[in-house]
């Protein structure tokens, strides 16, 4: 338990707000116990002022240190954004379970900078409602290979030493061995769930980048060596692990640094240890660039990058540079062992074909990830509401 306490001590929260309805929840009790010196401030409305279309730099920074525990009233579960852009992107059958939003880390490229409107970290305290949603879905689709991740608008584990939600989810997924639960993190906070009994269907995944990028662009996160050490601890306890080389950053000597990263992974793990390796190159919404420049200056490799508008509206590196980077990393992995399962995240079919010479459905070992699954009842319901102009 010492290591969990150590993890808690690394989490920097300055203010703790609690919605009155959240006060008696297990999550609130766990967080309060983990942060005994922090007074609880009751907040029925969004704390620190109303939501805004865009936060200022100061508000954004402060939002990472203020935590609001509150119930969530909407649908917890949805399909990964890439899956809704099937025309322009190839996306895996990934579903997201949003158990909060905002992140206590501060990566310069983080897409939350174009997205967030509230001035705190949010953790939803009605996890039982989320699990009830999943249970309902399981009655119909429990036999299908759904992949469910919790790291879309927050880091899956960066606050987990406070909430311990990972343990609740792992216990829940133990009942549905066909389903896969994926935690996606840039932390090394895994000790809080390592002893939890699981059904072998939990993937703990790390976004990784060369140490140089981690140090320069991924502020507040665990260093590369710490992430890899945490991955080893998970592997040793029978958890599946995965790595996302995403977002890959183009910079002088990138080949040297990405080669080193691939070598670090391949020297510590075998293809059998690693569920999948995904890759994606830097991309962000154009309107996000101003806040990024203001917060990180133009010496950042992200803000100073040469980015171009792409199909779908995001700014991306030149197509040829992306191909070169993907190709380089794929060859490096293959040079070690041809059995590494690699796929491209949020990329167009053209890039898939250029880099892997195949679309995902043609790649052995990835086919299952990409095989179309039936629409969920919840998705159909939301789509109908949108068509009918009904607001939830």
């Amino acid at each position, binding site marked *: 338990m010492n290591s969990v306490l150590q993890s808690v001590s690394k989490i920097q929260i300055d203010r703790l707000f609690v919605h009155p309805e959240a006060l008696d929840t297990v999550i609130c009790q766990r967080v309060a116990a983990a942060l005994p010196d922090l007074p609880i401030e009751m907040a029925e409305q969004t704390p620190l002022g109303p939501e805004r279309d865009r936060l200022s730099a100061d508000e954004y920074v402060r939002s990472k240190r203020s935590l609001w525990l509150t119930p969530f009233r909407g649908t917890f579960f949805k399909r990964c954004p890439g899956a809704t852009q099937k025309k322009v992107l190839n996306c895996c059958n990934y579903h997201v379970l949003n158990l909060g939003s905002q992140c206590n880390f501060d990566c310069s490229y983080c897409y939350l900078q174009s997205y967030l409107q509230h001035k705190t970290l949010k953790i939803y305290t009605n996890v039982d409602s989320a699990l009830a949603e999943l249970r309902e879905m399981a009655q119909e689709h429990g036999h299908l290979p759904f992949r469910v991740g919790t790291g879309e608008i927050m880091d899956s584990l960066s606050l987990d030493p406070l909430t311990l939600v990972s343990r609740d989810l792992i216990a829940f997924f133990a009942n549905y061995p066909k389903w896969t639960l994926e935690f996606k993190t840039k932390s090394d906070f895994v000790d809080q769930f390592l002893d939890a009994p699981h059904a072998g269907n939990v993937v703990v995944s790390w976004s990784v980048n060369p140490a140089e990028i981690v140090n320069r662009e991924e502020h507040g996160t665990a260093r590369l060596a710490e992430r890899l050490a945490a991955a080893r601890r998970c592997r040793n306890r029978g958890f599946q692990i995965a790595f996302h080389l995403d977002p890959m950053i183009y910079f002088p000597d990138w080949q040297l640094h990405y080669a080193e990263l691939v070598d670090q992974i391949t020297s510590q793990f075998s293809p059998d240890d690693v569920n999948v390796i995904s890759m994606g190159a830097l991309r962000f919404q154009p309107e996000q660039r101003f806040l990024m420049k203001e917060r990180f200056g133009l010496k950042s490799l992200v803000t100073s990058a040469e980015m171009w508008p792409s199909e779908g509206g995001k700014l991306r590196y030149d197509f*040829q540079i992306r191909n070169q980077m993907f190709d380089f990393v794929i060859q490096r992995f293959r040079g070690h062992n041809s059995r590494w399962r690699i796929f491209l995240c949020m990329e167009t079919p053209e890039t898939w074909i250029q880099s892997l010479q195949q679309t995902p459905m043609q790649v052995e070992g990835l086919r299952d990830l990409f095989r179309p699954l039936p629409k969920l009842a919840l998705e159909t319901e939301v789509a109908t509401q949108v068509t009918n102009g009904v607001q939830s």
Partner: protein
Amino acid sequence: MKFRLDLTHAEPLPIKLCVSQLSWRAVASWNACLPGVAIHGHMVVMAGAESVEVEKPDSTILNFSNLQKSEALDFFSSLYPDLGIYHWAHLWEWLQHPTVKNSFPFSFADLTEFVHLHISRDFEIALAHFWRAPASFQQWALDKKLQGRDLVALQSWPQALWSQSILEMIAMSPLSKSDALQCIEWLGDLAGMDVDFSGVWSMPAAQWLQQLRKLRFAESAARDASAKNWLAAVPKAKGLSWQWVRQGDQTGVDIRAFVRGPQELERQLESLKKLFSAWSGRGDLT
């Protein structure tokens, strides 16, 4: 009581135009009163009535200080549905003024919250930047109907840029609004990246944007230039034209052909085959 008017043709006008077109004359200058509003081309509505004189007999004068806060906000936002940065900047200053502050029914913060405008401390800084800009640039912002978001790039402008007369040069140049705003953003980027762009000013304004792009996207520009040179050296048959083009994140060859007969077509196909072999050998361009 609700004040709602059909404001389809309402438009805040610069004082100069109010005077000439609407016989509307402000006793005090802009930053001592609110902008005039013309409704259906003849009625002029003014707020802060003590500071204006109206010569048109059918004009209406409204004094905001008689209204409750919520009524005043509601009415104000329907009168001025589309304020530019120029107006916001003046409003900001005007509403800070002690006499206005004490008598006016709402504050700047009330107003921005009411119209859901993103006015944070940062926006106030942007407004302050606006005040630092030379008068010619302020006037340009008014003429081009600049909104607050148009000047967001100024927020990351390093101090050193402000001491140069760049904004003045931009305001005096024939650049379009979008080109000028793009220049402002790239200038801020280049200054932050310590790239020297002083050579740009010796060129005609029409070339500024292109030169700044070359500096801001130096690596891509060099790659594109090298691809263009390579392509130009590949011989092509008569009637066939090609050029290296960039479309956002993609680059490639735009090929056009005009064929007058089968023999010419054959020669062009031969030419395309040569292009194919030459291109296949350039791994860096695929």
